[in-house]
């Protein structure tokens, strides 16, 4: 068995620790990190397709995504150091907005984007506007995704869009929004580039607005 096969097994066993260890060993042994990345993306992609088709449940995708993230955390820095270029649909920074602790919907979107070939930077939940904007300016992702589950926090989405506009970043970075109280018309109103009602639609919307 090769490292790549073992890593695939770790994903299907949902074994995050084993995935991380195997990735470290494989890199040490000189396995091409781009090959590792290909394998994990492909595995997660397959699960994403099955989820879309209603064949498997959400926990399966999200558990597999946890292993893939662990592998990527090992592999990505190595690729960057060596100046390697990896295939990617683009980079997305994603967060649940300030004052809002709802995590699951946002994590679902992150997992599905990951499984569809995006680089995902997940800032977590209850992310203060200030931190969010700082991270955006630092990393300059292709797109920013914002989630809010409450009518009392949806206003943060508008504030972030406004801040991006003021900083002259609005044309450079696409914005996609979602969450229970959010609608297409709200997205239009605040000037977001896209809206998605669920994790499956999020990928489609993002593909569209990034012209992938």
């Amino acid at each position, binding site marked *: 068995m090769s490292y790549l096969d073992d890593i695939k097994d770790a994903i299907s066993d949902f074994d995050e620790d084993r995935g991380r260890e195997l990735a470290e060993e494989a890199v040490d042994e000189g396995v091409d990190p781009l090959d590792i990345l290909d394998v994990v993306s492909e595995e997660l992609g397959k699960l994403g397709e099955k989820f879309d088709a209603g064949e498997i449940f959400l926990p399966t995708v999200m558990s597999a995504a*946890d292993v893939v993230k662990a592998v990527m955390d090992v592999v990505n820095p190595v690729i960057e150091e060596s100046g390697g270029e990896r295939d990617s649909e683009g980079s997305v920074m994603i967060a649940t907005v300030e004052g809002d602790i709802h*995590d699951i919907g946002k994590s679902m979107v992150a997992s599905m984007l990951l499984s569809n070939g995006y680089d995902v930077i997940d800032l977590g939940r209850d992310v203060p506007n200030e931190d969010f904007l700082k991270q955006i300016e630092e990393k300059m992702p292709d797109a920013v995704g914002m989630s809010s589950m409450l009518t009392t926090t949806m206003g943060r989405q508008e504030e972030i869009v406004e801040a991006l506009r003021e900083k002259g970043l609005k044309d450079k970075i696409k914005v996609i929004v979602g969450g229970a109280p959010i609608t*297409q018309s709200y997205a239009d109103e605040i000037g977001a580039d896209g809206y998605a009602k669920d994790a499956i639609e999020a990928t489609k919307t993002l593909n569209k607005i990034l012209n992938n």
Partner: protein
Amino acid sequence: MRKGVSPAENIRLLDDDDVREIHNNILHIMENIGLKLKNDEVLEFLGDNGCEVDFDEQMVYVPSYLVEECIDSAPSSFRLGARDSENDVMFQQGRSYFCSCSGPINVLDQEEGFKKPEYEDLEESIRVGDYLENLDVVWNQYTLVDDELLGLQSLKAMLTNTTKHIGVFNWYGRDLVGKQIEMLKEVVGSEERLRKRPPATLYVEPASPLSMAEEHAEAILEWTDYGMPVLNFPIPFAGATSPATIPGSVSQALAESFLGLVISQLNNPGNPFIGGTWPFPMDLRQGKSTYFAAEALLIQAVTGQMADFYGIPVFGTGGCTNSYFPDAQMGTEMAMTLMGAFYGGETLIHDIGYTGAGDAGAIENTIYGNEIVSILKRQAEGVTINDETLALEVMEDVGPLGEYVATKHTRDHMEDLYFPEFLTREKMEEEREPDKKAMKRVRRKCNDILETHNPEPVDEETEKKLDEIIDEASDLA
């Protein structure tokens, strides 16, 4: 093998004394009030076997000891055969099974409305019944009113469009039942196999109050000569054709039903028998017979408890509605009647898909009913208490504000949860989209089943023989 299912707990409304009171009521009705039986041949048979008979009045009085003997000799479990042995039913009192039923003289398409059924409609309803996993016994859902040989045509449609156990209506007495038996024999191959794995249950219906028609009485004799299961199910409308009070109505109904028990057991001791009680009183404000009532659950539970006391399976009623539309009334009535029959402990629960209080059959409703049964089956699993289900460890791991979705504990148990196919949440944004209604999903499913599901056919030779038997029978009509 289909094995039935029972809820974690039945609804029980009677104590032991109550059960005994109803039992004594039934014995008293049968021995002292008597039942009208309009068939001299069967009266003679009953007279020869210990019943008191009045030929002038065409009345039979069954002594209590004989009723008790028949109750004892009737089996509480038996095998219902099917064309495909995978679909054989291990049928037993104490578990529930589900079926559609025949009778309505209209087809109701939830979008197109009514039409008169044709033979092809019978076939479609049977194919859908064959497909639905929760239907253990299949029936054609409509009656071909203009066809004088409708009993035989229906039977052919069932024999050629499902591999499950089927229900057979009796319409014309001994001669036509004989033809039905001939057709069954043709399909299973021999009389021995007919007895061993009977492919059909005969449905007969006494007329309330306290009467059985000539053709039904003799049909039971003919049918039980072959040891096949018989079902004698009265439809009293409490307040009109039975007492308005539930214990009185159920007692009368079971006495009516048990006349069939007595005929079957005296003719063939140990013959499989299914009794039962109709659960919907008359709407006395309007003088209408209904297919739903607030009291249904009470009657179903009392009947289920009596079935338990006797160890005799009963025909239950659920999944039907007074409504002609895919509306709130339909959903409420279908679900509540199915729940009452199931939690009440009735055995073979029928009428899934009856609409408009029996005016029409709707296969879309049957498909929807199948999902309600899936939900009942999930509930039947009950709740298991152990360290794994109490889940302290995973709570410790996840902690406050964590999430359970991507944990092993959730993965281990996610398939315990049942996710409905039709009763789902569909997010709608700016406007309500009618296309996302549950019954729209049901309709798409229905089209899909009709397009793709084709049960194993019978061979051409057998089908030809069936047609010959029907041709020969045409002078009986």
